[in-house]
């Protein structure tokens, strides 16, 4: 089992981890020959939120080499906080004046140190006075058995009723932050005519925030052929109730997002595609699944 790569785009990697770090302590990363998959699928997550993401190797790494008996895939489980700390140190040259040196090259590789499998981050750089430094962070990992990896399955969802482009997530976050103390449940409604609503409804208050003129992207679906039923009324609203706390956890991804598409499967779940980088070059996408709350206990 061999794995070694140079991290070219440390800031993006850092932000991706930052946006999922709040979700659960441990996350799973699956490296394949072409993609890096970040998975947070713990059942114990707040409101049952899950993340399944897919990031193209070339959008973050270069000199990427991977080899394993499991069709050249390596799946590891690690503490996202530890990974974040290693990346923070590696990205310090871009994020601010905290560091005393400028990172020039960051290499991530699989290693074994005193019988413990680690992801080793070797950061080489130059101090301000021109001395070369080398900093190594070892992040403890657990390499997952192929049989366990097989058992990882993305949640099954029906064909979404509507796809809608979300407004900038920072703006959304301001609003949802205000709603949070008032309610535990957030109602999300959207139609295929550019209308999006976020609402709470409790005994003491009812708040509805509405956007008009959002974009409903056309989604290319593999099973589009079976679209026989007549197109539904574009003004029909589809709604889902989600835990407001898990929605806020999703909103942490505003640090990495450029475009976010929300899909509503009425009364079933909400799927959020957070695109990393430009949608056009599709460097990667973080997919958040937030299951619907069925009993409206306000």
């Amino acid at each position, binding site marked *: 089992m061999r794995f070694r790569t140079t991290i070219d785009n440390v800031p993006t990697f850092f932000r991706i981890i930052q946006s999922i770090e709040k979700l659960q302590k441990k996350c799973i990363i699956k490296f394949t020959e072409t993609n890096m998959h970040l998975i947070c699928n713990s059942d114990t997550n707040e409101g049952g939120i899950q993340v399944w993401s897919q990031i193209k190797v070339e959008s973050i790494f270069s000199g990427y080499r991977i080899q394993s008996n499991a069709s050249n895939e390596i799946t590891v489980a690690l503490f996202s906080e530890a990974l974040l700390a290693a990346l923070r140190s590696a990205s310090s040259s871009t994020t601010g004046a905290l560091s005393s040196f400028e990172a020039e090259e960051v290499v991530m590789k699989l290693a074994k140190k005193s019988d413990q499998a680690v992801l080793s981050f070797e950061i080489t750089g130059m101090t301000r006075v021109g001395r070369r430094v080398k900093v190594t962070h070892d992040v403890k990992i657990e390499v997952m058995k192929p049989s366990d990896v097989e058992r990882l399955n993305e949640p099954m969802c029906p064909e979404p009723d509507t796809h809608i482009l979300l407004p900038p997530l*920072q703006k959304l976050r*301001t*609003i949802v932050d*205000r709603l949070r*103390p008032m309610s535990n449940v957030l109602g999300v409604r959207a139609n295929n005519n550019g209308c999006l609503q976020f609402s709470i409804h409790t005994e003491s*208050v009812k*708040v509805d925030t509405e956007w008009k003129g959002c974009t409903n992207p056309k989604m290319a679906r593999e099973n589009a052929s079976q679209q026989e039923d007549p197109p539904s009324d574009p003004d029909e609203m589809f709604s889902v109730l989600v835990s407001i706390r898990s929605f806020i956890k999703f909103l942490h991804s505003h640090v990495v997002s450029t475009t976010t598409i929300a899909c509503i499967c009425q009364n079933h779940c909400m799927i959020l595609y957070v695109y990393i980088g430009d949608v056009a070059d599709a460097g990667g996408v973080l997919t958040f699944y937030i299951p619907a709350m069925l009993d409206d206990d306000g």
Partner: protein
Amino acid sequence: MLPVLKASVHDVRYFVTLLRGVNFVNRATITVTERGFIAVVEEARTLLGTAYIFSDVFDEYEYNSESPGSTQDSADDEDNAAFEVPLNTLIECLNIFGTAGGTNYNASGGGRHNRWKKVGDNDDGDDGDDDDGGRGKIQQFFGGSSEKRTGMRMSYAGAGYPLTLLLAEDSTGPTTTCEISTYDAEPHLELPFDLEKMVLKVILKSEWLRDALSELDPSCEKLTFIGNPPPTGDPSQPRQKQKANSRVSLKPMLRIKATGTFGSTEMDYPNDRDVLETFDCAQSISFSYRFAHISRTLRALQSSTKTSLRIDDEGLLSLQFLMPSPSPKQGKKDEGPAAFIEFRCLALDDDQLNVKLYV
């Protein structure tokens, strides 16, 4: 039927500042009259906070009496409509877009808000797709909020109906509709302040009081206001000279004393017209209040310009804070009095006895 209340304003910040000043208990009684809007909160049957928000705070203000004709004529007992609302919810709703302005005392919420704004800042820079990103960034850098202001339209249809708010930043952005449940107004504490029985009256710049109170440790339990008549002398004598005398005399004109488990703090105000604009005190007095209650007034004190502090012979404290309008409207200025917030607080009982002995 006409709604009881209809009001609108293009920028909610001033309105929110006034409401925040009394936001120490969640349930507030709102009384709507022809002249404006009064929000009353009480705590522990001891402290009463009242925000007087006159109709000129709003761009539009319309009040329609629910009981036509009956009380319209009597000028004394002003016709009104009263209801209770969760005040915190009302403020959160008004600040839904985060542009209702914050106060320094809202440290926990404000801090968090700023932190993520900075993160968002970086984001903007990387995307480079935001046209006015540059201007927004510099605003955020200096800790101010963005250019945008929340506009509001508020209405209340009458007893049993919710208080409805329609909020928006601009025509292109989102709109928020809030329906806040209203409850029947319960009779609240009445603490009438009788001017005849007033024993101490001080008017001073709010910052003088704010600086004093903010010095105090939050662990203090009791706050005592001590007043002594100004040193006697020829009233025509210039004050400067009196000041010199007062330094020798042991009795300060106005002393604030805070007592807690770990000790006590005393602060004296000088006999200087620059500090104490008005000082009326006929005999020595000393009344104590629970510090926790006095600290409830800090948020209002913070945003006020002038403070009037009065105490009657029973120790009832009245603190009035003049709340300046951030942008005085042209021509509208003399239409009504400036909005203010008043707190009334009962003195601690054991001290009342002490005072009787002391006096």
